[in-house]
């Protein structure tokens, strides 16, 4: 099975000149304002490579040359593998791929009640995502609230490994957790070297806006980079709160943060498969609500994709989440508009794009199904209009002639399944047929589809022996 490849890049929110303006402004920030990094080994490494370091203030001033060198060292393209042949994704250029995001703390279940998420829910959602054909990768969606203290990391990744064959990525909270997960993945891969050659797991470490990396995350970032596994150095500047209110200003700051992530990974291990990572968002300054589903976020993510193309580093975008609390009209239009912008802008690893409500605080099975449709529509948009002699159809138009119809033409049969995208949730029947089928809205219909997919048998990607061995080796894995 080979995946169809979709290319974006048709939409450019920034001109070439504007990209350069953002770049120049960013260089001033990195050179003159500096970055706060508290982890001594990171400071030493940066200093050794030509950055000006103020040990007292724990500030790093990175010169343009150093930044340029690291940008060049970062791979322009890399493959993130799955557990099954054909599930791998090639990140880079204008190839567009969508997947899930996290970390939600709650699940909005089929009873329409919100409850704290558990390890079991991660397995269930991983299995659901496995069956949603437009989702190319699985970012660990939830926090397992039933995991013991300090056991969150292993309980986040273990259910994913068992129920997903798609590339898995997620944030980690502890160094021990990171090491355990890499060991677990190495065991499943048949050795660390095999995992490194064909990585099916990657990590997300955080850069704190504005312009700061704390001890733990610097340490995690350097550890992942040293192992050469796929890495996103997520920074979430919030316009008006942790970044300037202007979208341009937030883009400058997020660029500085994304590039600092690139710089550190490349100094640790040149060639580390790093994503140019961004989670640019806004705040509603009337209520202090942190917002994920805004059109401004869509604009900034589109710009981020352009910046990543400019640097020739695969991008990590954040679109498709909604601030709505339920899968309603707001959820649909926020997810659809931002996803389409990210896709048309040519984002490579577009995460957070499925299943999430309430600014990513809550995951909903129904929303995964709806978003799978939204993403399918976006991919159809990327496919564009195919023009060739056969599709221009002059012969068919001539054969049917004025006043005829095309329903019974072979040409129609030939293209009707591929020319249109067929969403699962949309109701496209007559009023009467819809009424006879129970007058269901899209939320109800999506719930039915999700519940059916989750009840159907699904594949396991860990055999009983492997599961037992892992469970006995890592204490604290929740039983489910």
């Amino acid at each position, binding site marked *: 099975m080979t995946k169809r490849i979709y290319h974006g890049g048709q939409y450019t929110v920034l001109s070439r000149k504007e990209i350069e303006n953002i770049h120049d402004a960013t260089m001033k920030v990195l050179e003159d304002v500096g970055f706060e990094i508290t982890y001594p080994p990171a400071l030493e490494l940066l200093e050794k490579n030509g950055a000006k370091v103020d040990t007292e203030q724990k500030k790093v001033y990175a010169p343009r040359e150093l930044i340029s060198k690291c940008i060049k060292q970062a791979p322009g393209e890399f493959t993130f593998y799955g557990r099954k042949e054909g599930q791998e994704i090639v990140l880079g250029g204008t190839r567009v791929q969508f997947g899930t995001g996290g970390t939600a703390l709650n699940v909005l279940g089929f009873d329409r009640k919100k409850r704290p998420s558990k390890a079991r829910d991660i397995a269930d959602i991983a299995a659901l995502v496995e069956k949603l054909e437009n989702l190319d990768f699985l970012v660990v969606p939830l926090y397992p609230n039933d995991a013991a203290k300090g056991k969150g990391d292993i309980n986040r990744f273990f259910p994913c490994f068992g129920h997903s064959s798609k590339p898995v990525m997620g944030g980690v909270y502890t160094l021990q957790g990171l090491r355990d997960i890499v060991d677990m993945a190495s065991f499943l891969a048949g050795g660390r070297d095999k995992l490194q050659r064909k990585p099916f797991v990657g990590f997300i470490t955080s850069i704190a806006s504005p312009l700061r990396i704390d001890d733990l995350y610097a340490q995690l970032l350097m550890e992942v980079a040293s192992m050469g596994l796929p890495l996103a150095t997520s920074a979430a500047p919030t316009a008006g709160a942790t970044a300037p209110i202007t979208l341009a200003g937030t883009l400058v700051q997020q660029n500085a943060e994304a590039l600092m992530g690139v710089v550190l990974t490349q100094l640790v291990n040149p060639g580390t498969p790093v994503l140019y990572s961004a989670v640019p968002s806004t705040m509603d300054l009337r209520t202090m609500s942190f917002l994920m589903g805004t059109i401004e976020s869509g604009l900034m993510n589109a710009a981020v994709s352009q910046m990543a193309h400019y640097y020739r580093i695969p991008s990590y975008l954040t679109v498709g989440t909604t601030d709505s609390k339920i899968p309603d009209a707001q959820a649909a239009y926020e997810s659809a508009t931002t996803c389409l912008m990210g896709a048309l802008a040519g984002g490579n690893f577009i995460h957070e794009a499925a299943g999430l409500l309430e600014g990513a605080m809550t995951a909903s099975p129904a929303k995964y199904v709806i978003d799978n449709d939204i993403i399918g529509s976006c991919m159809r948009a990327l496919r564009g209009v195919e023009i060739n002699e056969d599709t221009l159809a002059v012969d068919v138009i001539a054969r049917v002639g004025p006043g005829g*119809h095309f*329903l*019974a*033409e*072979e040409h*129609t*049969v*030939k293209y*009707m*399944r591929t020319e249109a995208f067929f969403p699962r949730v949309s109701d496209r029947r*007559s009023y*009467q*047929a819809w009424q006879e089928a129970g007058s269901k809205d899209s939320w109800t219909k999506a719930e039915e589809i999700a519940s059916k997919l989750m009840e159907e048998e699904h594949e396991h990607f860990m055999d009983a022996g492997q599961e037992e061995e892992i469970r006995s080796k890592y204490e604290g894995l929740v039983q489910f």
Partner: protein
Amino acid sequence: MSAEIIDRIVENVLQGRRDSEDEGVDEGYYGQPGVTELVKEALGKEVPLEKILSDGLSRGMTMVGQKYETGEYFIPDMLAAAEAVAAAMEVLEPQLLESGRQEDRGKVLIATVEKDQHDIGKNLVCIMLRGAGFSVVDLGINVPAKRIAEAAASEKAGLVGLSALLDTTMPYMRSTIEELEKSNLRDRVKVMIGGAPTSDSFAREIGADAHGKDAFAAVKIAEKFLPGEGNR
């Protein structure tokens, strides 16, 4: 041998292939005999007419209907199959006449009502009915009530199907039914209506016998009102 040719008829109905020139739904069929050629071949091998009709054509259409229900087949797939079957019925016409099957079943008369120029839906219904083995008289579009009533009498129709796409032309369905009553045909002619603005309740309101929400429903209605042992 006869089982093999019947299976090939079913297979080619599913592929919607009238003859060897048709490509079919799947690849690799072009050049191979289609439904009409296979039916001729079956006749040549003296396969009983009944077997060709029920185990071949009718079974094929039933399977097509199932594939449509599950979403695998689209309308054009159904149309291709129905057209292939209709063409095969033409091949079989001499045998059908000889066996006297079509006589007692009654024809279906189809028309788009007065002032309405829309015919795609009506054409689909005609194709599907023919594919199901019905004898269909298509009066075309913009047909006045009086002409429909006259044709119902002269063609000895058992069922009249009326189509309208506009809510401004829907009232002509009512006047057509009134015309059938005036002509004293209503006790032996059933009426079904269809078209986007029509509904079950509208059918009841104007005294039609049935409303078909699509071409498949029309076939089901026709089967109910014109039960025929012969060609189904």
